[in-house]
């Protein structure tokens, strides 16, 4: 089926394409997108994906609220985002068309399941007139394919009930798009065989639909030609396509393996973090213990208890879950025990946007506890980077005996990209460095164990899990005497301990790499600096600006607390510093506070990642405005935005610019 060489028209070459599969929540669009992605990955394309689905498990069928979409960007060169705008939209019903139309550039291709464009569905999607017939889609190339009827027809003699057969229409769409972009379907067919081995009727219906879709493309003469996106020139190595959540789970297993510590995950299910629990719970052969607790507090509490016992304690959460964990994080900071807190950020406040991405927990991670309670913060920048970032977070937690916050987000969690697999031997080794004996001799010459006698270099205290005689000790949330760890309420001791805890975390700056900086060529005057999942969009926006002949530098922060030791120097080298974030300007506040730099905040909070185009225009605006005073639309601090004279906007404390 993958042999397309005999066709009259050879496939046209494309360097990249963005395809968006959209349908009802129950239409299986995530599955279709995922399988298409896998085929493309196996073909060697570079790719990035963006699943975009509603919080409701099954919103009313046919409605706008129920539309679920999966966007995939495949390319023959290195790409960093799932694409700003789809070149192709597959719309399984009118609602899917309507919900996604405004993302389509003129000239884009729309493939609709024409069977679904009947009166009832049109009405549910809010169409009074069928858009397929009123000329409203004249800017696009529209293909009307009777997906439901062909899918039902091909399974008619297979003993599948028509209602059940219809459910395979996502495989028809997948087959059709596979033909259109010259992807073989064998791998998907094999997957269907395995996945539905115990449901032979479903298996058969899906296979028939898949083949029917492929053959439809080949024989219907609807399409002028098929297309091909050649493999990208990726660095040699073995690759997998991986989501951020899977990479995080594997990173945890790697951290346990490289430290020799048993892994214990205490957690409570919450979107979009739950997949880390799901993935880890499959891998008990690594000694992994996963514990689904009664609530978020018990999840982190059990993890801390496991850490006290000498395990690598981990908790995962999202959204309001991180609020609930604050008290236990404070205890972990005071106990000075290793603990990993993985926050897969989502839109807030409160329940907010459970399935949509946001980066708005940075200040919570920094400051969301009572008292002086610093902890290290690490942020992955791409789905596959979640692996290395998790390992790094574990390294810091164990070495410095501290809770560490890893700030992933919904986009990284569910998005995918090809990941060149590391050699296991190259992964860092984490030494638990357990206490092995007494560490102090008292005035009477008696050996004692002081649980808060610190390593002079790292300021970390000894980690002595129960089990060793002579090291029995008591720790707790009350302030402790420096050294002995005994309860102590003395003011001078508290000041000393508070400063020691702060110095321990601040000192990590000397143990992390310098700022990751892509300076570009020549003397850039503008630095774009971001953190976490904005990496791809910033990199793409910077590349576009450079392609127009501008010199722009890009720095990206993996460590948010402490910052790399050279960050102040890096910032001072640039005339303008632009800080794009999917929040209202949290990193920009930290940079301003820490380095007195006039950081210009550029933000959006739409539940979706930045587009490369909006990043590009923000950079270009700044370039155009350079040297002629404040950025248009981005007045200096304190003044109301120019376009809304007289209105008092809630200031985010920096120059407020809003993305597209």
């Amino acid at each position: 089926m993958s042999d397309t060489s005999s066709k009259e028209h050879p496939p046209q070459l494309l360097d990249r394409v963005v395809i968006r599969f959209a349908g009802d929540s129950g239409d299986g669009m995530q599955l279709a997108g995922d399988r298409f992605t896998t085929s493309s990955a196996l073909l060697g394309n570079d790719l990035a994906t963006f699943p975009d689905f509603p919080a409701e498990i099954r919103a009313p069928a046919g409605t706008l609220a129920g539309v679920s979409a999966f966007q995939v960007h495949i390319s023959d060169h290195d790409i960093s985002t799932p694409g700003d705008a789809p070149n192709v939209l597959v719309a399984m019903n009118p609602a899917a068309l309507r919900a996604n139309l405004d993302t389509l550039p003129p000239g884009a291709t729309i493939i609709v399941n024409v069977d679904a464009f009947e009166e009832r569905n049109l009405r549910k999607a809010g169409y009074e007139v069928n858009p397929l017939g009123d000329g409203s889609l004249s800017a696009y190339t529209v293909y009307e394919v009777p997906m439901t009827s062909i899918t039902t027809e091909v399974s008619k003699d297979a003993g599948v009930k028509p209602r059940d057969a219809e459910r395979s229409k996502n495989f028809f769409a997948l087959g059709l798009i596979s033909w259109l972009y010259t992807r073989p379907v064998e791998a998907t067919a094999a997957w269907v065989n395995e996945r539905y081995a115990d449901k032979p009727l479903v298996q058969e219906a899906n296979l028939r639909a898949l083949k029917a879709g492929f053959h439809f493309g080949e024989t219907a003469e609807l399409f002028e030609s098929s297309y091909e996106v050649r493999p990208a020139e990726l660095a040699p190595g073995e690759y997998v396509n991986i989501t951020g959540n899977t990479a995080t789970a594997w990173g945890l297993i790697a951290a346990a393996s490289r430290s020799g510590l048993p892994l214990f995950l205490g957690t409570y299910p919450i979107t979009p973090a739950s997949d880390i629990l799901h993935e880890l719970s499959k891998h008990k052969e690594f000694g992994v213990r996963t514990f689904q607790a009664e609530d978020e507090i018990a999840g982190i509490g059990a993890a801390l208890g496991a850490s006290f016992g000498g395990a690598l304690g981990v908790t995962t959460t999202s959204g309001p879950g991180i609020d609930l964990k604050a008290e236990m994080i404070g205890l972990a900071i005071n106990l000075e025990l290793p603990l990993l807190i993985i926050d897969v950020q989502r839109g807030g406040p409160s329940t907010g946007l459970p399935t949509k991405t946001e980066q708005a927990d940075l200040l919570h991670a920094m400051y969301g506890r009572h008292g002086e309670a610093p902890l290290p913060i690490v942020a992955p920048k791409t789905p596959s980077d979640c692996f290395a970032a998790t390992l790094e977070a574990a390294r810091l937690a164990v070495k410095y005996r501290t809770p560490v916050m890893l700030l992933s987000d919904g986009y990284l969690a569910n998005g995918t990209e090809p990941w060149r697999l590391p050699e296991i031997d190259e992964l860092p080794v984490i030494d638990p460095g357990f206490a092995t004996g007494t560490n102090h001799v008292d005035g009477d010459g008696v050996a004692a164990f002081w649980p808060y006698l610190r390593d002079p270099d790292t300021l970390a205290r000894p980690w002595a899990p129960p089990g060793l005689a002579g090291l029995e000790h008591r720790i707790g949330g009350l302030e402790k005497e420096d050294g002995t760890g005994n309860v102590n309420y003395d003011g001078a001791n508290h000041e000393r301990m508070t400063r020691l805890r702060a110095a321990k975390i601040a000192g990590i700056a000397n143990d992390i790499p310098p700022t990751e900086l892509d300076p570009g060529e020549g003397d850039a005057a503008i630095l774009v600096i971001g953190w976490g999942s904005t990496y791809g969009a910033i990199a793409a926006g910077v590349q576009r600006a450079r392609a127009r002949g501008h010199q722009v530098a890009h720095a990206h922060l993996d460590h948010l607390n402490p910052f790399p030791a050279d960050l102040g120097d890096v910032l001072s080298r640039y005339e303008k510093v632009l800080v794009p974030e999917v929040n209202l300007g949290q990193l920009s506040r930290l940079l301003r506070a820490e380095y007195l730099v006039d950081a210009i905040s550029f933000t959006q909070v739409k539940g979706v990642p930045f587009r490369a185009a909006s990043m590009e225009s923000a950079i270009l605006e700044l370039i155009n405005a350079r040297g002629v005073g404040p950025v248009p639309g981005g007045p200096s601090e304190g003044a109301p935005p120019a376009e809304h004279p007289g209105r008092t906007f809630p200031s985010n404390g920096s120059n407020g610019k809003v993305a597209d």
Partner: protein
Amino acid sequence: MTDLADAPTGDQAVAVPLTTRKDWSSDQEVRWCPGCGDYSILAAVQMLMPELGVRRERTVFLSGIGCAARFPYYMNTYGLHSIHGRAPAIATGLAATRPDLDVWVVTGDGDSLSIGGNHLIHALRRNINITILLFNNQIYGLTKGQYSPTSEVHKVTKSTPFGSLEQPFNPLSLALGAEATFVARTHDMDRKHMMEVFRRAHAHRGASFVEIYQNCNVFNDGAFEAITGKDQRADMLIPLVHGAPIRFGTEGQRGVVMRTDGTVEIVDATSVDESELLVHDEHRDNPGLAFQLSHLAAGPTEPTPVGIFRDVERPEYGTEMRRQVDQVIERRGPGDLHHLLRSGSSWTVE
């Protein structure tokens, strides 16, 4: 990844050393109010430990917040004084990963029945291998005298000057409702009884729940005097003895029978045949009868059963968790990181 429970710490080869109460006492000055019932509980525990044949380095005392929660500082063992109500949650992670440890959770009525109620019931339900000592003084002591979830209705306290409106929890009924596998009650005026109950609680594999009536002589003095006072005990405490008819009173003149509707009542034992008295069975699988016994007294002013209400066997969580891990390792072999990373569809770029 080794299991820490298996880690060679050297002590397995050496016989458990003989110890005295002093060995189990830390060098920290005990700072409860003079006359507090906590002192006698601490003494009972410290005196019991040498008799248990256990190692200090394999013993952990864990607590939350409250007067009782200072307990770990006074034990020369490993200890963790945590945050309000969360000790059972922290203990769950510790006990689940370290089945080799004896984990004791010391808590109070505010700590584990108010802010930590959720963790308590789930630790009991899961049958985590911990021994919970709940010091019930029916008052908030550390915050200086507010009513607690075990304070009686109409209780006048600092926060209820016109009387409490709340129905109190019956801690034993709650534990039994959560399907706890070991449930017992003792009181701070009888060291021998405490030690015996603690010994049994420690011997039980799984979650053991012990309610200790404890006098707070500052904020709720005499709350249990009517039943635990030396002169009252014989008539007001009903000792539960496995396999024996339930009777009490100086002459054993009163007893407990089961009514036809399944509830229990106190009767004049001299007026009924011995065979009609309820014979106590700790091991009864159904917690219903133990629940009835926990309801025999409406509060510590009426004849109240003490001793072991329930002691049944059920798989213990940490052991089961470990068994599952072992089974998977046996089936699949130990995990290999190299293979894990290639467990999906991988492809090679030359």
